[in-house]
């Protein structure tokens, strides 16, 4: 089992966290999100993203609004809700603790 396979589950779990982070910066639509992710280890596809975003919307973490685009029909632009921002803050906090632990454990 390669490292890549081993961390498949971790990457999958972290995707939601990264979405919160991306959406927190500015209003984005799915193609923007995919583009930002495509250059990272978290590169993913619409087939994964749409169901995940709809789940996050059901949980009240994100919301969207329709915006006219210069070419073609209106698009859904996603933004964080107050609850989403709160969760992002908590997760960032948790993440920094985890990475601290990863760094410090086992060192003398």
């Amino acid at each position: 089992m390669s490292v890549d396979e081993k961390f498949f589950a971790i990457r999958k779990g972290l995707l939601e966290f990264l979405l919160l982070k991306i959406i927190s910066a500015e209003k984005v639509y799915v193609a923007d999100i995919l583009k930002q992710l495509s250059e990272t280890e978290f590169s993913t596809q619409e087939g994964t993203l749409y169901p995940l975003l709809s789940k996050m919307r059901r949980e009240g973490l994100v919301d969207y609004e329709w915006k006219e685009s210069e070419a073609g029909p209106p698009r859904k632009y996603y933004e964080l809700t107050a609850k989403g921002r709160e969760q992002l803050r908590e997760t960032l906090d948790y993440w920094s603790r985890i990475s601290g632990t990863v760094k410090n454990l086992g060192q003398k």
Partner: protein
Amino acid sequence: MNKVTTINLGGISFQLEEAGYDALRAYLDDAAARLQGNPDRDEILSDIEQAIGEKFRGLLSGYKNVILTREVEAVLSQMGPIQDDAGAASGASTTASGGGSASSSGAAQPAGTAPAPKRLYRIPEGAMIAGVCNGLAAYFNIDPTIVRLAFVLLTLIWGAGILVYIIMAIVVPQALTPDEKAAATGVPPTAQDFIRRAKQGYYEAMKSFPDRQARREWRRRFKRDMRNWSANVQREATATAQDCRRNWEHYWGMGTWNPGLGLALPVVSLLHGALVIAWICTLISLLATGTVFGVVLPVGMPVWVAVLILLFVYGMMVWPLKAARRAFYYGARGAPGAPFALFCVMDAFIWVAVVGTLLWLAVHHFPQAHEAVRNIPTVAHDMADSIRDWWNHH
């Protein structure tokens, strides 16, 4: 040169090569199946359609207005398969606070995977005749003895048990390979899931959730899973029924047999009706006077035994007629158009009307019939007593 199909994606029309259309259709059907049970299914599907449309638009230009099959395939592989974890981890609060068994039970059943269906087979191991009862018992997960008793009772009361048995012995395939045996005896995964979930205790889980939000989420998910489960059971039942029908058609070649509905059906129905009336007359004679049209019963034979024998004889005589009428109905249902259905309804109506009227007339205008109806409780009592005696004796 390829044929082109026009489709509508998110309100914009696209022209696709036919094979490309098929690929797109298959992708969207698969997506819909994977999102089965997701509350936002329709919205996600329309998002997906719109995203595909956007990609298609990027492929078109002034001179090129058809999306080629390989382009459709490229776009679909860019989209990737639908990955829906909503069933597994819906509601961060549930996952966080519910913990333990409740949230892992959701994860154990990925959304949209169809369970291997349980099938009805005849099981030769431990069979008495052809393994029909054995197979039925395995299918419904009950003791074969009960099924056998039910068949014996069916035969005694309507004479239909033997007919049903013979038909099933012909129609239902025998479980021969290990796979078929597994399908014949295994509890279907959906039912297993149902039992496990029920055992886990829906209310136990409810109690373990600290806040209302999580409880509501759990209840919603439970209900949805139950709905999916019943849909699965229905699907299995339909598949089994269709299988049996196919075998039946195959055996009798009925797919091509078109009976003379207009002529044969009323004749068969009248015969059936005449038999019913003869049977009722015999029954009345038996109940009222203890004789069958003047013929005295053998010494020592109680009336209820005679009634059972009469029921059996009647059942045996009438089942070919019943089967024929069913066959006509069946043939009619397979055929398109309303007149056939009308025949069936008419036939059934005439039948019920004739038998009902005669019964009513008999009870109200013949003292014998009246007497017979009055004697029914006594005879039934007799029978119950005899059975009790027999039971206590053995």
